């Protein structure tokens, strides 16, 4: 009697082991990541609350068509725009010695705004496959030099053979920084490196990267 029970239990156990992992979907977890969003760059930005101020600025500058061209756009988030307003508010308050003054979105002059948005905008598709760990210089639509490159990171990873690579947009100041940097190289000439928090979103018209929240809009 006792032996029989053991056999029956073992049989059921084996059945469980054989059948349990059948559904392979469980291992994959739904579908593969798809970088394509079936929208234009502008529409995609409009659909995310993180960019509602940015889309207002694009409207104000009348640059919707330009952004929806064959372009790569490095989108600053609302945080970057808010920081700009805080900074400008501080400047005018100090200048006129009046703490009630406020710099608002309406105070931004349109030509300046256009220039600044164009300094985040590049012709053609620039994505990870065209980039490497070395600097690659591109001209922005504002006709300034930028380097776009990938940099390896050790953050959030342990011992791995292939390190994750972050995508950076680098504003060149007085030419590309020499490598290695000479001693006492002036800070004002050092290139400004900005990390993208999301990279390689493929829209119907081009590529969209999102800059980190601490990026200084207007550089």
């Amino acid at each position, binding site marked *: 009697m006792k032996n029989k029970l053991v056999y029956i239990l073992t049989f059921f156990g084996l059945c469980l082991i054989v059948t349990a992992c059948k559904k392979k979907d469980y291992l994959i977890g739904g579908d593969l990541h798809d970088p394509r969003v079936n929208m234009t760059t502008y529409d995609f930005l409009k659909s995310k609350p993180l960019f509602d101020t940015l889309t207002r600025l694009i409207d104000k500058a009348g640059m919707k068509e330009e952004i929806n061209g064959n372009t790569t756009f490095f989108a600053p988030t609302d945080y970057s725009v808010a920081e700009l307003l805080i900074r400008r508010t501080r400047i005018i308050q100090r200048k006129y010695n009046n703490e009630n003054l406020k710099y608002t979105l309406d105070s931004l002059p349109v030509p300046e705004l256009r220039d600044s948005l164009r300094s985040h905008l590049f012709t053609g598709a620039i994505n990870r496959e065209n980039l490497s760990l070395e600097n690659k210089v591109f001209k922005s639509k504002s006709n300034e030099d930028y380097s776009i490159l990938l940099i390896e990171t050790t953050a959030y990873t342990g011992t791995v053979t292939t*390190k994750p690579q972050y995508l950076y947009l680098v504003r060149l100041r007085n030419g590309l920084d020499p490598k290695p*940097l000479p001693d006492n190289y002036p800070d004002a000439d050092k*290139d400004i490196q900005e*990390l993208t928090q999301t990279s390689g979103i493929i829209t119907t018209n081009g590529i969209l990267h999102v800059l980190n929240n601490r990026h*200084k809009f207007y550089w």
Partner: protein
Amino acid sequence: MLLLGGMLCGGLLSCKKLLDLKPEDSVYEAVFWKTETDATSGLMGAYSLLRKSLTLGGQGMSNFVYGDFTTGVLKEGGDYALNFLVKGDEYYGTGISVDDFRGDYIEDFQNWTPYFKTITQANTVIEKVGKMPDNAFKSLAVKRKIIGEALFIRAYTYFYMVRIWGDVPLVLQYDQDPVSSKNVQRTNEAVVLDSCAADMNRARLLMGWNTGSDHAVRADKGAAFALLAHVNRWKYFVTKESDKTLLTKSIAAIDSITASGMYSLVPAANFDRLFKGRSQEGIFEINTSADQLEYQPNGGFYLYTLGQPYIPEKTKSTVFNSEVVGWFFNDPTDARYDYYFDRTKEEDLILTKYIGKNNQNRFFLDPGNNRGGLVNCNISIFRLAEMKLLRAECNELLGRSSDALTDLNDVKLRSNLTGYSGADLKTEIFEETFRELFCEGHSWYDMVRNKRLVEYLDRFPQSRFDEEGWKWPIARSLFVTNKDLAQNKYWVGRLR
């Protein structure tokens, strides 16, 4: 049966000799504290515990957590728990700024157990070395020096605790029987400071001035005087600024340091060597030198506040508050304006004070591949410029402006500035101290004792200062084992 009997007999007889042997290499009271090496090892244990107590917490940098994260110079702490100190209760938006010292996971910093470990070790060294015969040492001076250093470690640890918690239990005796030790109540902070001063007045006679490889990294006469100066200045503050003789004592101690001729200000061109440690300016430092394979591989303040391009492959998570930094560093001709910070991004300054503007104090664990970058700097506790500014502060409080101005200008001139000629000497000394000791683990205490918290820190109302809310709360876990403790009054009913 016979076999079993035989085995039992064997068990009884066979191991006798083996059991009689002394355990090799083990440390226990009956065999330890015999030679000079034993005494030195015991002392080094105390130094080790002292260093550990200053590098506590998840990021291994409690000295800077207490001293700098609390001062408003940061905008982003880069760590959930530390952000309570940086942003106050922004997480909750309650508008009551009390969530800094009691934030989630902050309890590590409310607990004084690590400091009492240091004190227990120091007490043991003082007692045991004191009872060792003089002929166990190369010379009597060695024995005296070891006791002096242990006194310094004990007094510095008490002073450190008083600045954080105020009253603390005062234990000055070696405890022979820790198992049955009694609970101890907190002793008034002024009495604890008196004990520190008494220890230092004893220690300064036991120790000489260190030169060579022991300079600045082992306590000497200079360190004793420096601590004496600080203890008296802090006592002047906690006794409601009633006894001006404390200030004169403080000044006298610093006079002994400057008169010794053992120290000199390091020129601004050699700032990298000053912050690396063991310079002619250093009085006492915690040794974390990579030259001796002593470093913090995955933590420490210096590394924590850095990232690309200074440390390759590392993303920086802290952000300094450029506006607050700008209040203090507003003169580009100041050598520190340029040396302390990388100003590539004005909104996101990088603290280059320690690693050096040209990476002078950086080293790699894997130099071939430029991987595992670390910062090779000691943790400065006392240095000459700091002493001069403290003396200026005391002289100003006594109304001796010209003496105060001399010391202030010495420090200013070193950083290529001209002498001060404005009207508000008091504020200038405070701000110069803040500038000079920026992110050296001092600023919070400078703000407290000069009563500048309300003025310079948005989230610190006057009422909190009046209730001594600058003191840290005592961790609740400590009340479990010691029911005779009382909480600091500001935090009664406020701990979550």
